């Protein structure tokens, strides 16, 4: 059961990484995720049904997500649609696109070999998923980490942190924002692609609630790893996604019905938003009391002298 949770978490980790890029680095709440996740799934499964190899289908799924991100980015930066609305517009439009790609609401994969089942049969299905998840996670994290060490990567981070300062220093902020949206949604679509391959089908409804799952994973990851180094932050996303999946797996095992998983996701997200805030306040209070107590005893000493 725990193994299943870990395996599932690894393929959902790319959703967390994608949400991290828009939510944490660009400081944008991007709802495109709800459309780009099933887009990655739809494109990949459709291509595989049509006879493409899983590798090609997965890469094209990723690229489709990038295009979705670029569209939201253009709406946001060039047409000045508020970012929240820009995401909603793309996500809504993608519903129709996804239907057209699949041709129906649910598209089963059939007998095609997925990235997971390409591996030797000696591994069971969870082990196959874990191997694929770990390998792709290493590649994605390494690429992103390298990117964020470059001048352009730094420009993306600066844009998310202070766009006024960035523009004043010659950064074409619109381009950086669009780039961020593209990479983010590419990762999210990649996650959708892997989840669909793992499930053996793509479904029009599989995007519902992804943004909540993604945000919860990001926040859980950041509770466990508080480093501000980019590499650790990216690794934290994988950890967050795995922990989140484990929570869901445990919930299902104690008898929570699948229908209630969405509300459970919402509750988990609320908890992980609120808990760190309360923790911070308690910690601040404790430090303050310690400091004030220190002042008191210090005063007494001076009196004694």
């Amino acid at each position: 059961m725990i193994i299943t949770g870990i395996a599932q978490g690894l393929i959902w980790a790319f959703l967390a990484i994608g949400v991290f890029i828009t939510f944490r680095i660009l400081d944008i709440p991007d709802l495109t995720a709800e459309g780009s996740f099933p887009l990655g799934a739809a494109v990949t499964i459709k291509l595989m049904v049509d006879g493409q190899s899983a590798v090609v289908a997965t890469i094209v799924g990723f690229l489709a997500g990038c295009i979705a991100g670029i569209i939201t980015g253009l709406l946001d930066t060039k047409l000045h649609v508020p970012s929240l609305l820009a995401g909603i517009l793309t996500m809504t439009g993608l519903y129709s696109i996804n239907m057209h790609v699949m041709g129906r609401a649910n598209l089963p994969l059939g007998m095609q070999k997925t990235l997971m089942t390409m591996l030797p049969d000696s591994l069971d299905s969870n082990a196959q998923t874990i191997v694929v998840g770990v390998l792709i996670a290493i590649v994605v994290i390494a690429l992103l980490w390298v990117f964020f060490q470059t001048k352009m990567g730094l420009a993306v981070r600066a844009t998310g942190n202070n766009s006024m300062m960035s523009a004043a220093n010659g950064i074409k902020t619109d381009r950086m924002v669009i780039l961020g949206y593209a990479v983010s949604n590419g990762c999210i679509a990649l996650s959708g692609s892997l989840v669909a391959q793992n499930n053996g089908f793509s479904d029009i409804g599989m995007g519902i609630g992804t943004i909540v799952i993604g945000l919860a994973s990001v926040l859980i990851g950041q509770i466990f790893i508080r480093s501000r180094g980019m590499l650790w932050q990216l690794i934290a996303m994988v950890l967050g996604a795995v922990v989140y999946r484990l929570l869901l797996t445990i919930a299902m095992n104690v008898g929570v019905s699948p229908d209630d998983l969405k509300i459970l996701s919402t509750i988990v997200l609320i908890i992980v938003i609120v808990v760190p805030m309360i923790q911070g306040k308690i910690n601040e209070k404790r430090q303050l009391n310690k400091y004030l107590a220190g002042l008191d005893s210090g005063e007494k000493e001076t009196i004694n002298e």
Partner: protein
Amino acid sequence: MNNNSVLNMDGVQKVFFPGTANQRHILKNINLNINQGDFISVIGNNGAGKSTLLNTVAGTLIADAGTIEIAGNDITKKPVAGRSKWISRVFQDPKLGTAGDLTVEQNLSIAINRKRHFNLTWFKSKSERNHFKEVLAKLDMGLENRLDTQAKYLSGGQRQVLSLIMATLSKPNLLLLDEHTAALDPKTSEAVMKLTNQIIKENNLTVLMITHKMEDALKYGNRLLMLQDGEIKVNVSGDEKQQLEESDLMEMFES
């Protein structure tokens, strides 16, 4: 216009909320020529158009009519990033000039690479780091030991000095100072102003500075502009400027 000209504004107009009851004509036919090496202080009442003037030069606002040229290039319609090749700016709010979540080194790296952000080479470089250390050490504020500190943990004064260094690191054709000492306490404000003047002198920079402080406007720079109701009411330079006193300025304000 002569060869010495850094910035030339010709018939620049800016109108806010045109056609509504709130219509305000903020810049009225501004003609201004700034020569290489000029250090201009701009004073004026609230709403006189000082900030609008600066924002129009910086590209935060686009002029509604007229032309703006810098070093012979027409930049009237260029966005902020496009102008950064020639112009850099220190904002009034220390938080605006630096990225708080990025380290001092990363902020400086962005400033020094202002012409090549679309670039996939490593931003960290040993030689640049040493260069930053040298520049910061000269300030004697201990900033050279805080290269890996996030800018948000610096004091307001330190952060503003960092902004100033970032703005002058690559020797811009024109430096815009937007009441850059107004948010600091009196002592820090004076120290930052002195440092500013020193950096300007050392690098022979051309400067347009907005200030609320009469004494700074009188003490620093070779030219003084006073804006009133969207027009340049006073434009003095050289000896004439040197002889001005605070009482003269107060009189001008009242007239």
